C-alpha cells in the first residue's frame, strides 16, 4: 500500500503510437516506468475520474494537443475547471512551434509547453526537466 502511495502517477495522453513509444523510452531512460498511456483525451478524463473516485490524484499529466475524440485544449479546460484537479501539473507536448498556439495553451492553464523535438536526446532532456520541476509526490 505504501509502495502504491509512493509511486507517482504519471498520465500521458498521446494518440500517436510512435510518440508514445518514444516517450516511454525517454522516461525509462530516467527510470520512470510507472506511466499510464491513454490514447485520447476522453480516455484520459475517464481515467482521472476513476482515480478521483478511488480518492487518488495524478501527480503529473502530459498531453498532446491534437487528439481525436477529446483534444488537449478541452482536457486543460475541464481539468482547470474542477477544483479538485485544477492544481495537478499539466504539461503540453505538441508538434507546433507557433507562438500564438503556445500562448493560447498557456493561457488556458497549462504549466509548461514543449515542442516535440526531432532528437531523442532532446526528448530525454525534456522528460528530465519535467520530472525535476513538476513531479512532487503528495
Amino acid at each position, binding site marked *: 500500500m505504501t509502495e502504491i502511495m509512493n509511486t507517482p502517477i504519471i498520465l500521458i495522453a498521446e494518440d*500517436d503510437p*510512435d*510518440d508514445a513509444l*518514444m516517450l516511454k*523510452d525517454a522516461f525509462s531512460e530516467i527510470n520512470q516506468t510507472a506511466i499510464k498511456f491513454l490514447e485520447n483525451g476522453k480516455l484520459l478524463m475517464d481515467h482521472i475520474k476513476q482515480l478521483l473516485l478511488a480518492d487518488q490524484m495524478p501527480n503529473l499529466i502530459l498531453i498532446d494537443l*491534437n487528439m481525436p475524440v477529446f483534444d488537449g485544449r478541452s482536457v486543460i479546460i475541464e481539468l482547470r475547471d474542477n477544483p479538485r484537479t485544477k492544481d495537478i501539473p499539466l504539461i503540453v507536448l505538441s*508538434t*507546433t*512551434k*507557433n507562438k500564438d498556439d503556445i500562448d493560447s495553451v498557456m493561457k488556458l492553464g497549462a504549466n509548461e509547453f514543449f515542442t*516535440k*523535438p*526531432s*532528437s*531523442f*536526446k532532446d*526528448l530525454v532532456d525534456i522528460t528530465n526537466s519535467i520530472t525535476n520541476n513538476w513531479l512532487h509526490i503528495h
Partner: protein
Amino acid sequence: MVQIDILSFLPLVFLFVWAAFYLPKFMQRFHGVFSKLLVLSIAPLFLAQLFMALSSQAFDSYFNAAHYLRFISYIVPLVGIVLNYVETVRNEQRMIAKLDVEIREKQAIAANLSEREDLLANAERISHLGSWELNIKTNSYKWSDELYKIYGFNDFSFQPTHAINEQVIAPEYKKKVNKELSNAVINKTHFAAEYQILQPNGVRKYVLGQGYYYGKEHKLIGTVQDITQLKEATLKLRKNETLLREAEAVSHNGSWEWNSGDELVFWSDEMYNIHGYLPHSVIVNLHTYLSFIYEDDINEVRLQFSTARKNRASFTVGYRIVRPSGEIRYVSTTAKFKENEVGNGYSYLGNTQDVTLLKETERKLEEKINELNVSNKDLEQFAYVASHDLQEPLRKIRAFGERLKTRFGDSIDVEGQDYIERMQNAAERMQTLIDDLLAFSRAAREAKHFTPVNLNDLITKVLADLDYTIENNHATVDLAIQGQVEGIAPQLAQVFQNILSNSLKFMRPNVPPIINISSKTVLGSTLQISAAVQNQWYCVIQITDNGIGFDESYAGKIFDLFQRLHSRAEYKGTGIGLAICKKIVDNHSGFIFAKSIEGEGSSFFIILPIKHNAIS
C-alpha cells in the same frame, strides 16, 4: 370833209393798249369793286376818245367835258401802271422773304441729314455693319465706309467694282452668294446669307449679308455684318456643347436644372438616356420624376430633397430608377443649391450618374474578396497541415534514426552508421525546407501592421541573435545606421537576419568575415528606379561583406524562389531566404538588389520608404 388828225387818235390807242394788256393783269390781282369800277369807267372814256378822234374837233357844249374825260383817260392808265408796278415790287419782296425761309429750312434739314449720316456711320462702325448698293443697270457699286473696313481696305476712296466685289468673297462661298443675289433679283425679294470673306491680308472673316431688290430703281440694296466674333463664340460654344454631350454619354452622367418657380425640370440629353427615354420625349417635372424612381427608394429621395430645400442646401442621394422597359438601374444624384440673384427664389443644379456598372463591379469585387478570403483560409489551413502533418514523419525519422544509432550503434558497422546519418540529414533538410516555405508563405499573407521601426535597434537585435555564429566565424560587423522607417518589424528583422546570415555563411575559407552596414536617406527621384515615388524619401540600407560574392549576371536571379548558386555540399540552404527578403521588401513598397564581384564580396541594397502611408 372829215379831217382825221393822227394825234387825235393817240390817246385812243394808248387807252386801248392799256385796256388790252394791263387791265386783265390788274383785274386778276385786284378783283374787287375797284377794278370793276375801273372797267366801267373805261366805257365813257372809250366812247369819248372815239368821238373826239372821229370829229377832230370839239363839239360845243361837250367839248370841255370831253377834254376833261380825255385828261382822265390819261390819268387812269397811268395810275393803273403805277399801282401795278408797286404791287409787283411788293410781291417780289414777299417772294424773297419766303425764299429765305425756305433756304433756311433746307439748311436745317441738310444739317440734320448730315447728323443722321454720322449717326448711321457710327452705328455701322459699332455694329460692324456695312451697307452697299448695286445698280444693276449700270453695274455700279456703292459702299459705306464701314464696308470698306469690314472688307479690310484702309483706303476708302477707290470705287468698288464687280471684280473687287467678287474678290472679297471667299472662293468656296462665291457660288452661294451669287445664287442668293440673283434669286433676290429674279423673285424681287429679300436675301440673307452667311459666308466668309477674304481680306487683302489673307484674314478670313465670317459675315452675314442681307438685303433686298429695289425694283423701282432696279437696284440691290444690302448690308454686310462682320459676325466673326459671334460666329467663333458660337462655334466654340457648339464644340463645348458637343464635348459635354459626349462626355455625359460616355460617363453616363446627365445634368439637370430646376428653378424653384418653374414647373418643369430641364434635362440634358443624357438624363433622358439614363432614364431610358429618347431625348425630350417626355415632360419632366418634380412629380413625374418621382414616378421614374424605384418604389422602395421614393421616400428616401423625397426626404433628402425636401430636407435640402428646407435648409437651402445641396444634397447627394443614391437610389434606383425603373426604365420604361422595366430595367432597374442604380443612379447617384448630386445637386447644388443656388440662390437666385434676384428675388427669393433658388435653383438646383444637379448631376445624375448611372452607377449600375460601378455597383455591379463593387458587388463582383466583394464576391472576389470573399472568395479570396475563403481561399486564404484554405491556404492557412494548408499551411497548418503542412507545418504539422508533413513535419511529423520527418521528426520521427530523425528521432528513431538517432535511437537506432545510440541503442544499436555497436551492432551496425560504419557504413550502416553513415546511411543512417544521411537519412537523418535528408529528413532534417526536408524539415528546414518546409519551415522556410512556410515562412515565405507567411511573409506573403501575414497581416500588415506598419509601425515606426528604429533600424539601428532592429539590426542590433538581429545581430544579437547571430552572436554565436559571428563569434564562431571571428566576424567583424560594423553597424553605422540611423533612421526610422514605417514597417512591419518582425518581417524587417527577417530580412536582415537572412542577409546577414548569408554574409556569415558565404565567407571565404579562412578569411574572417567583415560586414559593413550603413544607411542613407535619399529622395525617390535620385534612385534611378522607375517604380520609385519621385517625391518620397527612402532609406537605403547597404550591407557589404568580403565573402565569396557571386557572378553579377545572377544578381536578378538570386531573389527567385529555390535559386541556389552553390551545391549543397559547399553551402547549406534551401534557396528560399532571399526570396523571402524580396517578398517582404515588396510588402513595404521598397526595393532590393545586390551587386557583387566574385571572390571579393557582395553588397545588398535594401531601399525602404520612410513613410509607408504616403505610398500605399
